[in-house]
């Protein structure tokens, strides 16, 4: 299944785009998104350990299911304030 994923901040900079399309298994999870991002964009490896993933605007655990209609967003640790 193909999933559109939005990227922010340093992650966006490393990938060179604010949005990418990743391929994950059809009953895929947030953990699959993380792995697929690292495989497709090896330059993101240094960020992967601390990467945060949100599904439909909520922080998502690794076993959260991803649907084709999900809004999936990947970003590094936040630094507002």
């Amino acid at each position, binding site marked *: 299944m193909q999933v559109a994923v939005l990227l922010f901040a340093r992650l966006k900079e490393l990938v060179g785009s604010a949005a990418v399309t990743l391929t994950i298994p059809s009953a895929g999870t947030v953990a699959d998104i993380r792995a697929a991002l690292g495989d497709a964009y090896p330059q993101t490896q240094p960020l992967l350990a601390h990467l945060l993933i949100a599904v439909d605007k909520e922080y998502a655990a690794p076993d959260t299911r991803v649907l084709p209609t999900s809004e999936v967003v990947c970003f*590094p640790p936040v*630094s*507002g*304030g």
Partner: protein
Amino acid sequence: MISTIAITTAPINYQRLVEEVRTPAAGAVVLFLGTVRELTAGKQTLSLVYEAYTEMAQKQMAAIAEEAATRWPIAKLAAVHRIGPLGLGEVAVAVALSTPHRAAAYEANTWIMEAIKARVPIWKQEHWADGTTEWQHPSS
């Protein structure tokens, strides 16, 4: 109880936030302002750019405000985070709240700022005086 919760590109009018949270029901108001600092670990900042995943940032700010209101007797609360380019000394974030007594106002404000820095999807990019830029990502 919770009034303004916003992510904005406009300059923050902190006086409006303070006036929103003042009430005869409360004896204490605490306002926090996070402003753009010129020096960080000896390096000189020219300006900052804040980027947000805006819809989620708005939701997280509102969730933090609601959680704070369950932990402390908050009379009124307003919080705004600015995004986009900011110059030295400008206000990046403002949290204003009122409580009946003093201690809770300090504690709740401290907790909210810690929660904002930990959970709200906003990122800071330093524009250093040496011409380089650098995204700030704690512990990454």
